[in-house]
């Protein structure tokens, strides 16, 4: 048996394994996916919102947070030296909402450093982080706090959904976010929540202070802090019914930059925690290998795809060149008939399983807007994007890291 079919079959096995892994987790826990524990006590919650040039969305975020049905102790907006009207808007709202506090950075420090300033100033037992372009539902915080009755809980995250779903790229991300929320909840059952994203996550203040806040050198501070919390023995939990709506990138350029940042941040995390690889605890035994293998498989798949494409292109070029010399036909009708291989059958089955998995997740999450025949095409496109674009972005991210390392430059957010 040749090497490529072996690699292909290995991919098939990994996909099949992951498919069953999530399906079993769902089957075992389907009745309590959407349940959240009632808090035995009243927690004081401080909300921190870092903001940089967010004049379009900050007011909505503040109003959404402060209209929460669970009373928040305070909301701290850390204005990271915005060049727009962010400061002015927050100051105006502070006059209306006494719980709202504004901290102004004297220079642009970045998201993680701004969050750390907010943590220093926060007085609550729990600290919620809400991005300045995100809008939590009224009952979101209230649904999440009950998880902190378990002393081992260090962080709780929520279902992040896309606020506006008007254009294709937004719809695409909306589907992706739903799948991520569902699988993140399922991963919780094996202690595998690997990120507590910025749109809405709540942390135990004492834990944040113990680990000295967010890592300012990491581009995905929300992943890094989760890994750090897990590494010192706490759990990260996921509250599926707590929903927050976030503004997703509208242009492919911003979307690409965001994905590159995620990839680079992920690689930074792997590099930082590599010593824990395959050591005791779910970070070393599952999250790190899962993260690394996913990236590796994506890149390997892309490399094989690129190799085969280049090889076929070269062969087609030579074939065309020789055919022109020989004066033969470039295409014969009988060559259009292809005898299917077992790998073709596997491919079709796995594509079908991927589609089923996506539709199933959307159905479980009660995302009715994705129903209908037209959306099947969106879903198919979405799966193709996952299979092709994401590994390409990863490869590009690696090149970018290498370039910045060589030039001795710091990698920034680059989205604004």
């Amino acid at each position, binding site marked *: 048996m040749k090497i490529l079919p072996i690699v292909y079959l290995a991919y098939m096995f990994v996909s099949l394994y992951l498919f*069953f892994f999530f399906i079993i987790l769902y089957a075992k826990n389907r009745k309590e996916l959407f349940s959240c524990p009632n808090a035995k006590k009243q927690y004081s919650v401080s909300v921190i919102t870092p903001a940089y040039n967010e004049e379009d969305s900050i007011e909505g975020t503040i109003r959404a947070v402060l209209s929460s049905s669970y009373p928040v102790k305070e909301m701290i907006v850390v204005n990271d030296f915005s060049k727009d009207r962010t400061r002015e808007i927050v100051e105006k709202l502070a006059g209306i909402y006494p719980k709202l506090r504004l901290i102004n950075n004297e220079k642009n420090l970045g998201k993680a450093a701004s969050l750390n300033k907010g943590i220093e100033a926060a007085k609550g037992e729990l600290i919620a982080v809400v991005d300045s372009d995100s809008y939590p539902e009224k009952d979101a915080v209230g649904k999440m706090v009950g998880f902190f009755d378990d002393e081992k809980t260090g962080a709780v995250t929520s279902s992040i959904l896309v606020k506006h779903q008007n254009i294709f790229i937004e719809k695409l991300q909306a589907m992706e976010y739903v799948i991520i929320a569902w699988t993140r909840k399922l991963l919780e059952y094996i202690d595998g929540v690997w990120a507590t994203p910025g749109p809405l996550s709540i942390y135990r203040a004492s834990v944040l202070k113990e680990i000295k806040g967010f890592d300012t050198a990491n581009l995905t501070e929300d992943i890094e802090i989760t890994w750090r919390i897990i590494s010192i023995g706490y759990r990260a939990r996921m509250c599926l019914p707590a929903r927050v709506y976030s503004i997703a990138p509208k242009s492919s350029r911003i979307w690409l930059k965001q994905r590159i940042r995620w990839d680079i941040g992920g690689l930074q995390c792997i590099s930082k925690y590599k010593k824990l690889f395959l050591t005791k605890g*779910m970070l070393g035994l599952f999250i790190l290998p899962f993260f690394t293998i996913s990236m590796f498989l994506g890149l390997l798949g892309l490399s094989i795809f690129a190799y085969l494409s280049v090889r076929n292109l070269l062969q087609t070029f*030579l074939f065309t060149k020789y055919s022109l010399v020989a004066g033969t036909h470039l295409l014969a009708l009988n060559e259009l008939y292809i005898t299917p291989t077992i790998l073709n059958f596997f491919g079709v089955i796995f594509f079908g399983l991927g589609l089923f998995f996506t539709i199933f997740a959307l159905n479980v999450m009660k995302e009715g807007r994705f129903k209908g025949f037209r959306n099947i095409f969106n879903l198919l496109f979405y799966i193709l994007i996952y299979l092709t674009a994401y590994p390409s972005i990863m490869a590009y991210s690696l090149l970018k890291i290498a370039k910045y390392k060589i030039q001795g430059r710091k990698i920034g957010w680059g989205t604004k």
Partner: protein
Amino acid sequence: MVFHSQKNVFWQAFILAAFVFALGILFGFVMENSRSASIEKLYFQSELDLLDIRIQNDIYSIENIKIDCLGAVQENIKFADRIYEEAKLLDKYEQANKITGNIILQHKKYDLLRTLFWINSIKIKNRCNASYHNLVYFYDYNEPSIEIRAKQAVFSRILSELKEEFGSEVMLIPIAGDNDIISVELLMNSYEIAESELPVILIDEKTKVQKIESKEEIIGLIKK
């Protein structure tokens, strides 16, 4: 709500995935073996037919029996067309063969059969002064480079177009030149064809075509 981690899912998913994967592989084996079996059946019939043709020739070689040249040539042409079609089918199945190695073995058997047929074809041609042309196509079977692969694809195209154009005037005999078959190696040596030169078209045991030539030029070489 007390949290219990469910780490047994790791091996449960593994068992399920392994079971379904094994079923898929089993299906692959069954599918490829069934293709291999259909090739085997065709081969068996072809082997019988060739044996029949050879025995006929042996009978004609007995001096007091007059050779029926027309019949012998017709039989030979019929057989050539048949193994040419089977070669195309074998090639298709071979390309779709990913798990088992059965078809590769069958390829060797077919190479031997086609070599035997070629020798028989030369004999009939000499004895009956037949007008058909033997076009033996020696190709690189094992891991050809991209360039050789492209070259072979064009040679195959030229030959199949010639076959369509000339029909029974041409005996098209494709043989893998690097399949470690001693009789093929012997014949290649006798016609001064090295393995490194593949692919090569040998026209009427006289002319070697190694470079890509136009179809018209090859037709010219056949008619020479």
